[in-house]
């Protein structure tokens, strides 16, 4: 996403909205991430400038919570649930199949920014275990053999 005027304005609107609310730093960062997909350094600096919260404190919060991302997300974000139910029903095998397809291990992003692979703690779909999500779309009751079909389908037209 470009750093155009609109983006800047949106971020400054977000800051304005939350600035006066007590203890809203976490919520502010959530809003920034939902707008940009991650929290870039310039946005963190903007928050610091506008609210007076030290940049170090903002990064303290950003790096504590696993939900916040500091780098631009990949085009196809593959999340693999490794909650207990999914783990027992074969999540490790799914990760292996995904590695075979993308060449990426848990936690890695491809250099061209096409794929990222993340192991997630329970996403609450235990009834469908094992589960992965590709850009938010959930696929359940999978076998390692299903991975290729799902990723082929998701990246169709590339």
């Amino acid at each position, binding site marked *: 996403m470009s750093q155009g005027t609109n983006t800047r304005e949106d971020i400054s609107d977000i800051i304005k909205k939350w600035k006066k609310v007590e203890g809203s730093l976490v919520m502010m960062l959530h809003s920034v991430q939902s707008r940009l997909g991650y929290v870039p350094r310039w946005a963190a600096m903007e928050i610091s400038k506008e609210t007076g919260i030290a940049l170090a404190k903002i990064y303290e919060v950003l790096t504590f919570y696993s939900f916040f991302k500091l780098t631009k997300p990949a085009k196809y974000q593959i999340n693999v649930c490794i*909650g*207990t139910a999914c783990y027992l029903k074969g999540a490790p095998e799914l990760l292996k199949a995904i590695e075979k397809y993308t060449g990426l291990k848990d936690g890695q992003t491809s250099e061209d920014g096409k794929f990222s692979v993340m192991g997630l*703690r329970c*996403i609450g779909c*235990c009834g469908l275990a094992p589960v992965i999500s590709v850009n938010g779309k959930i696929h359940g009751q999978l076998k390692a053999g299903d991975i290729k079909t799902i990723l082929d389908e998701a990246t169709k037209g590339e």
Partner: protein
Amino acid sequence: MAKLINDIKEKFNKQYANIDKRIVVCGGTGCIAGGSQQVYEAFQKEYKKRGLPYTVEITDGCREHSTYISKSGCQGFCAQGPLVSVGDIFYTKVKVSDVEEIVEKTVMKGEVIDRLLYVNPTDQKHCKTLKDIPFYQKQHRILLADCGKINPEDINEYIAHGGYEGLAKALEKGQQFVIDEMKTSGLRGRGGAGFPTWLKWDLTRKPQSKVKYMICNGDEGDPGAYMDRSLLEGNPHSVVEGMIIAGFAIGATRGFFYIRAEYPLAIERVQKAIDACYKKGLLGKNILGSGFSYDLEIRFGAGAFVCGEETALITSIEGNRGTPRPKPPFPAVKGLWGKPTSINNVETLANVPYIMTKGGAWYASMGSGKSTGTKVFAMTGKVKNTGLIEVPLGITVKEVVYDIGGGPLHGDKVKAVQTGGPSGGVIDGDHFHMPITYESLQEIGSIMGSGGLIVMDETDCMVDIAKFYLEFCVDESCGKCSPCRIGGYQLLGYLNKITDGTAKEEDLQKIEEIATAMKRASLCALGQTAPNPVLSTLKFFRHEYDEHIKDKRCHTGKCKNLAKFEITDKCVGCGMCKKACPVGAISGEIRQKHSIDQSKCIKCGQCFNTCKLKAIIRG
């Protein structure tokens, strides 16, 4: 006070009289993942195409003899989704392509489509309605009763089902009444620790303070548990009502929902519920003319398990890293922004409206001993029926796993049941007759926890499971206190040695020492309970630890470094395994018994999975 509630109820019922039939499409996260949103839209399209009257919302404009096509919250039977019910008839695994047939046959002619019915795996019986399904028969659904029936996004329907009557009653009768009823009910914290809810409220009510806060803990972080998500999605108003009653009881001015950002649908539904309450005068200034003013808002969690601990959660709402602090002072005295605060779990709060309307004595009549009422569990793992269940406390593990869960998934014996997630422990086969209560679970070294119930069979390695949970806690340790930060890391090191085959016998004693230190010295419950899965598996499955350490063997094959694959005489020499082996470790002539070169084998298990004759053994 009750008049306003009654008016809404009457109006809704009058409008509802125009509805002839109702189609409910499950809109829980599980079913949505299976495509239920598309099914929901397909029903509307089909009705439009046929020119049949339907509505997706109950309003004044409903035509007579309409069908109400509505979504519901999670119905708990996730593995069979998307779920659709037409009147009483209950269909499973419904696809968009089935919709036309359902409208044609079931809606128009009242015929049942056999193909879409649930087939009970034990007796192959086709179940026409929910009541016919064993999974539902043995349950006692109170909180979940309306999940799956009512439209979670329609406050009027919640009210028509008796909603907000509890609030009206509470406001009318006063704080003391609420606390007395809660005391009679015996309701204890459903987040896991089981602290009496009435006592928590009473302790928060007592301090003199103009500002007090109420917090709903919806930071459901246990892997393998999703009770709170389902309640927030399926019947958000029950939790909102619980929050208002709780706020009234303690004299709060503001309340916060703390919900995981990983649950976007829950956040959306709760926000809608809060907005609807403001519109009806159930939130804001002078609620229902009682003089009580109260505001509710949502704050998001951001993926930190430790934030389920109450002091860490408070720190997080204040906008900081969510690290815990020593207690006392307890939040009831010094909580959010230094003010008296009560923090209750989602399920605890969802119980409150029912206790208000039906009375504490009614609630206390269910359950066993000091563990009253019902509990929602998320049953997953190696069992036939996985899903959300609500059962009276005091039910035995056996009833849950075999009667409701339908027994083991693949015919392998159920080896153990795990409760309490990363803070809990296992229940072994000898204790399956044990009633599930807070006390009984604690006695055998587990905890009630928030309600994850994971069934494990003979193919699961208990050392591997203990390691899985410990890895989770080590990963989630906030790092503030050293017993948890360092202890967890060291403990994991020993477990890794065991699964690698390099551990010595005396390591077990070290494990016990570190675990005890962590339990005694950690700052918060995360560190105090993190060794539980290790200690509890060690208690009941010591032979598996011994097998790893002494025999350097893992009979389940889960611990890759210890696994050994061998080809037996069953082999007919088809060559499938030879083809599957990625490192060329298998040799043999066609139609002759093959063999594995152990020095080349990387223990990937491909051959084991490929062999159709089960001629390859692992262990």
